[in-house]
């Protein structure tokens, strides 16, 4: 039983940030044993030098692995795990991770702790801190002997700790024969940026459920305009159809890193925070002083947005 495995994520030949976040943390944890990155895909060998922070990389390349599909990826990784018995397997809590982590737990019969915000090594055990109940509650789970699976929230750890160029030992493994797959990849659809690419904007004013009604959105839009920025939103607003998908910030929207991010009526669910935590200056306005958004904001105003925004907008505008 050896080693800590990080299941890498790549999309169309580019390694995702979460891979480096996990890699960096594993290195810091120094659990003992080799740090191995498991990389599946097709024609992605040139990505391996980016994984210098790992001790070794298990590379499985095959046409059937060119695009991620849940079943094949899981079965390949499970076969590898059964053969090599890693102590701890780390997966990111992304869509792929939400397929793989429970899937591997079920197939391999090993315990899983999900939604990890933090991992610590303590006396030969791994303590995984999960963020549950909409981010309001934290739970410490013990992985006995540091054995098991953890799925880690994107953005829980810093990526730069895992980014080290180098030449890890690369072991190329043949893809096992798995018979006819029951899930077939068809195509990848990228969102239309529509009117605006919010990832390129410097100033974003974001609206959440606290706005209560579509009719009130202009209040926030006015502030965005007055600042010369763009209007963005959290998922519920886009789901309601009040703003287009191109404006969505969060786990299943865009990840943005603007100079200024003003969160209006957003409570700060982990999925949203994932998309904006790296903004340079975050100001949050929410009537609930316990809202998780205040954990990631630099400045917080526990007030009703309807009392603050119109006045703020008026004062920012040049005098008419």
């Amino acid at each position, binding site marked *: 039983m050896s080693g800590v495995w990080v299941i890498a994520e790549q999309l169309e030949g580019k390694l995702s940030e979460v891979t480096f976040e996990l890699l960096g943390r594993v290195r810091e944890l120094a659990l003992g044993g080799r740090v191995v990155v498991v990389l599946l895909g097709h024609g992605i060998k040139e990505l391996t030098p980016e994984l210098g922070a790992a001790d070794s990389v298990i590379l499985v390349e095959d046409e059937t692995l060119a695009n991620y599909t849940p079943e094949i990826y899981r079965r390949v990784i499970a076969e590898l795990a059964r053969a090599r018995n890693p102590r701890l397997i780390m997966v990111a809590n992304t869509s792929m991770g939400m397929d793989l*982590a429970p899937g591997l737990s079920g197939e391999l019969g090993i315990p899983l702790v999900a939604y990890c915000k933090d991992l610590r090594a303590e006396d030969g055990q791994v*303590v995984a801190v999960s963020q549950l109940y909409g981010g*309001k509650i*934290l739970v410490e789970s013990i992985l006995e002997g540091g054995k*098991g699976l953890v799925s880690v929230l994107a953005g829980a750890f810093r990526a730069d700790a895992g980014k080290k160029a180098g030449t890890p030992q690369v072991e190329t493994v043949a893809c096992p024969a798995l018979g006819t797959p029951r899930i*077939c990849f068809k195509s990848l*659809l990228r969102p239309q940026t529509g009117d605006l690419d919010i990832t390129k904007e410097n100033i974003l004013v974001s609206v959440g459920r606290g706005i209560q009604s579509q009719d009130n959105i202009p209040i926030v839009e006015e502030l965005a305009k007055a600042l010369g920025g763009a209007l963005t939103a959290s998922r519920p607003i886009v789901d309601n159809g009040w703003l287009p998908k191109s404006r969505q910030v969060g786990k299943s929207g865009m990840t943005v890193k603007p100079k200024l991010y003003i969160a209006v009526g957003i409570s700060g669910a982990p999925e949203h925070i994932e998309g904006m935590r790296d903004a340079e200056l975050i100001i949050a306005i929410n009537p609930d002083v316990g809202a998780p958004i205040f954990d990631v904001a630099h400045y917080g105003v*526990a007030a009703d947005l309807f009392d603050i925004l119109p*006045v703020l907008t008026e004062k920012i505008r040049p005098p008419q």
Partner: protein
Amino acid sequence: MEIVVPVKQVPDLVEELVIAPDGTRLDPDSIKLKLNEFDEYAIEEALLLKDAHRAKVTVIAIDAEGVDEILFTALAKGTDRAIKVTGDFSDGVDSHTAAAVLGEVIKGMPHDLVLTGVQAADDRDGQLGPLLACALKVPHVSVVTGVHLVGNRVTINQEYAGGVVAEMEVDLPAVLGIQAAEKPPRYVPVSKVRQATKTAKVDEVAASAVPAVPSTLVRRMFKGESGGKAEMIEGTAEEQVERILAILRERGFLK
């Protein structure tokens, strides 16, 4: 076509969550349970498929306080059958246990498609969907928005970050973790639910014994620091606005 929708309740996050004195779980008296939001979307997606393809929809849940109301509401919305799995669940049911218990029951009934909410707020040990798929030995996809039946397969959309979507074809039977339905969940008038409670029937099935599932111990449960890292701006609304303006000016955001 037979669609099965496993559902469960989770604590309502509107209420203040209180940690029990032993520090490892929530105080049950402080909790108010409500149907997991994503399971609601799964029910809606199932009903939309039923409307389009004349499928039959069965909703299934493990017995817990308040589960009857959930099941009768689902019946009032239009599902054909509701099953309550009874047994001793006083210690709580995690995803692994639920997958084992439900898997046994679902195995014994026709199931072409199993739709369940992609995740729930209390999924410490991971999401139900993939675990259930493992128990049923069928394929599974998470974070699905968009389910289209094509013969004996479904074409689905899996959502990734940044709004990227992958289209895949999945052989049936399969389990899908629903992120969102094609339409928001339909409204069911209170009178219809009341009617269902009086006239409809919830089937009860006893859970069969299941082997122990791999699990981890909870050492501690606690609340995140409130207020956290933000510097809170106090005062009247006018004072708060002035302070915000000062910060923005200082950082060069105002012309």
